[in-house]
């Protein structure tokens, strides 16, 4: 019987012990320095957001430029070929 009471006491203490640690934190007196925040909270969002939109702009402009350049190159080659053909004796 005593052993059972002892087990009950241990069990009750174990289950309620967590509430001791779950007490509200003492009120913060003043600002919390940013260094104590988790790393993701410390990271500024604006540069990442600007980077994301800039990447799109650079990537798409670069790709459009390659299309424009390739079209220009093919058209130039076609003109040169036409010029060569017109100058050739038949």
């Amino acid at each position: 019987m005593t052993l059972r009471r002892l087990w009950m006491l241990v069990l009750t203490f174990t289950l309620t012990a967590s509430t001791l640690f779950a007490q509200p934190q003492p009120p913060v007196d003043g600002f919390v320095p940013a260094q104590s925040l988790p790393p993701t909270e410390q990271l500024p969002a604006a540069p990442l957001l600007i980077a994301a939109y800039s990447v799109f702009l650079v990537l798409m402009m670069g790709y459009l430029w390659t299309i424009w350049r390739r079209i220009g190159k093919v058209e130039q080659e076609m003109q040169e070929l036409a010029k060569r053909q017109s100058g050739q004796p038949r």
Partner: protein
Amino acid sequence: MRKAFVPLVVLGAAMFAYAPVAIAHTPYESTMLLIQKVFYFHLAAWAGLGLAISVCGIASAIYLFNGSKVADRLGVAGAELVVVFCTFGMISGSLWARKAWGIWWGWDPKLTMAFIIDLVFVGYILVRRFGGPGAEKLAAAMGIFGLATTPFIYKAADWWRTIHPQTSVMKTLSNTEGGAIMWSTVWFCIVTFLLLTVLVLAARTRLERLKTRLDELYLAAEDL
């Protein structure tokens, strides 16, 4: 298309110029705040990829079955755009993840599948470029395979355990405060990207058409 091309380019440019203004006016999402605004171009880029990959896959199938040159040109144009959009989707997602998840990249199913699809279409372009005779057919098969993997990328977050939000997250947008503005901006960006996709496809197929014409001119010159 030729007559409508210039007005559509002007319209597309105006829409792209206005998009950042529309995005700036959307409300902040409560947990991610500013970084959540990457979402508007991120999602729209995947929508553009969806269109490009469909065009490439369907055009590849048509080319394989009846050898249509027009379909072949569309396939090449679509494949290049898939690489552009997929690369942007992964980079923008990575920048968003750095802030939201604390990591640049994670090998979870959705992200890994996106990476694989990018590699498949880089492979498509390399096969076209260096594959030699018959490379068009091999590349077309890759295009069909690429299209077949699309549903798996889209549903990966629903089917497997992943840190990426599920597709059902979009439904919650309507219930949030300012959800109507967020939805209208999402649709505005999607339409803008789809218009861009159509215009770039048109420009890229024109390049392929010119290349074919040049080849024909060279062949004609050899016959003379």
